[in-house]
């Protein structure tokens, strides 16, 4: 696929004979893609393999159309990488460190210095850019890592657990920065995290890994839109029986819960106001109406459950669960 950010083509990575990534096949096309999975699922290994740190034992992958086996240098030239762990050069000032990294990416010294200053101001560390990196707090180190990842102007940003160890205000600031970068639309990003909230707030697509397999791949936006006709009602009346019958006659799928709660899927072509009319006819009060949608947590948990019983990945999109969107292929 021409516009795929990442194409995984039977990618397998083994360490000491042990498969870590197991024949992954996918084509990721989103502007901001979340890599989700429990610890040890293979998220960081996938990023490191795409960067050329690990050699695939079979298969390959393409990053923005470049093969990671034969065009490693070109691939790295397109990527800005923010690693999971502390990574810096102690004793070096922040701005000098980012300048060094930009120069190694190919920027001339003058340009590298200018962009290092800009990157530091951009991530909010402008005032401390001349301080030694070793003296930075954890939040400042995370921001400095982001600065070095964007200073050379990459086309694709790999963020590996960017909010690791951050306190709530620092986390909010980091998420805002990532959203800002995403919304400017000048680079695409892959965010690896085990924190559902980070992915939900920053990504429009999510790839869920479990034990080296793809457990699910979904477009969060489409998923939300697809579920907007799933409703939860809280009703009050002498009996809901007649109301339920009327709903089913209308074509709704219903399920009755305790204390007048009803879950239903509204068929196409039926407006919500029709429910109120029906309730009035049946002398039923609708006290609350919620549009229920799958949260990322629901999607994640379902993926974990389904991959626990079978190897087939769960694909959720606007076309319906289990359908494969064009350009997506899985084992």
């Amino acid at each position, binding site marked *: 696929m021409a516009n795929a950010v990442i194409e995984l083509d039977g990618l397998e990575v083994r*360490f*000491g004979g042990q498969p870590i990534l197991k024949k992954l096949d996918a084509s990721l096309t989103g502007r901001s893609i979340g890599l989700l999975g429990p610890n040890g699922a293979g998220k960081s290994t996938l990023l*490191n393999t795409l*960067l*050329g*740190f*690990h050699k695939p034992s079979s298969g390959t992958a393409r990053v923005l159309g470049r093969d990671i086996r034969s065009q490693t*240098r*070109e691939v*790295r*030239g397109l*990527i800005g*990488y923010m*690693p999971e*762990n*502390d*990574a*810096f*050069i*102690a*004793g070096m000032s922040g701005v*000098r460190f980012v300048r*060094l*990294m930009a*120069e*190694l*990416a*190919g*920027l*001339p010294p003058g*340009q590298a210095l*200018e*962009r290092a*200053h*800009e990157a530091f*101001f*951009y991530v909010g560390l*402008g005032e401390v850019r001349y301080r030694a990196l070793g003296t930075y707090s954890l939040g400042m180190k995370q921001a400095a890592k982001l600065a*070095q990842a*964007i200073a*050379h*102007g990459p*086309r694709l940003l*790999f963020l590996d657990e960017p909010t690791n160890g951050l306190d709530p205000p620092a986390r909010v600031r980091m998420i805002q920065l990532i959203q*800002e*970068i995403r919304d*400017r639309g*000048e*680079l695409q990003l892959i965010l690896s995290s085990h924190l559902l909230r980070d992915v939900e707030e920053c990504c429009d697509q999510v790839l869920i890994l479990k034990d080296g397999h793809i457990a699910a791949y979904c477009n969060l936006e489409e998923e939300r839109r697809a579920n907007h006709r799933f409703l939860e009602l809280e009703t009050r009346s002498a009996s809901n029986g007649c109301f339920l019958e009327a709903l089913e006659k209308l074509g709704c799928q219903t399920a009755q819960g305790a204390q007048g709660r009803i879950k239903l899927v509204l068929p196409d072509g039926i407006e919500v106001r029709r429910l109120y009319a029906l309730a009035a006819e049946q002398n039923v009060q609708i006290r609350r109406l919620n549009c229920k949608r799958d949260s990322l947590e629901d999607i994640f948990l379902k993926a974990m459950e389904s991959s626990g019983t079978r190897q087939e990945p769960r694909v959720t999109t606007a076309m319906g669960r289990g359908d494969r969107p064009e350009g997506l292929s899985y084992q």
Partner: protein
Amino acid sequence: MAVYKKIYRPYDGVLTAPWKRFLVIPRYAFEDLHRSRFLTFFYIATFAYPLIAALIIYIEHNLDALKLLQVEGTARLIEIDAGFFMSFLGWQSMLALFLAAFIGPGQVSPDLANNALSLYLARPFSRAEYVLGKFSVLAILMSLMTWVPGLLLFVLEGYFEGGDWIAQHSRIASGLFLGGWTWIFLASLLALALSAWVKWRPAAGALMFGAFFVASAFGGVINVMLGTRWGDLLSMPNVIGTVWVRLFEGENSLSEGGVFFRLDRSAIIPVWACWASLLLLSCVCLYMLHRKIRGREVVR
């Protein structure tokens, strides 16, 4: 562009040539080394011997000065021959070993300790370029101490003696260049390999000297216990001395090498064995670097 612009913008300017990006590493390293007064002073002090040697060569060719020193006729103050240049290279190489022991351990170990390798190698910058960059830090500094001033002295002597002397003694020039590089290559690789494996810098520096002196003593013990001469292959001064003598004087060599790098004439070991031992040591160092210089270490 003002530095206060708080926006992200992609870079669409020119890029530097990929082949010379490794030179970024020595440039930053030299800036750091220049901040250390001790190292700056030490490095300047290492040029004392070349200056004295240049002075000796000058005096050797200045009749007034020789008269003043009461050296007349065909007598010479010091013979300017292969031995003179080997001694020069020996002194300077020993100082280069000190330099490598001071700055070598600080090359790779801080990057490993702070996981910086993943940042270096996530760029269009290979492991080989990283090692080449770190190697060039040591190689440039050591070159300026050893074969570069050595060749300048050779040119100075040739200037005074004339073109015939240069033609007759061209082996000295090639010996200075190749002998100097042999030592630089070995000492730099050893310093980098130890720096990659020993994270405590003083210990890595001490191991540099250990490889030079303790291994010699160990080789001597092997010679005594087994009644052999092959233990000398562990003695770096002996091995390097043997190689230098061959490079400077050819097959019909008579001298015993330079200062600190002397061969044992009573139990001389073949030159091929010396080259083989140097090659083996280099391969071991390269393998050590190959194992450690990685974007991400896999813990099995």
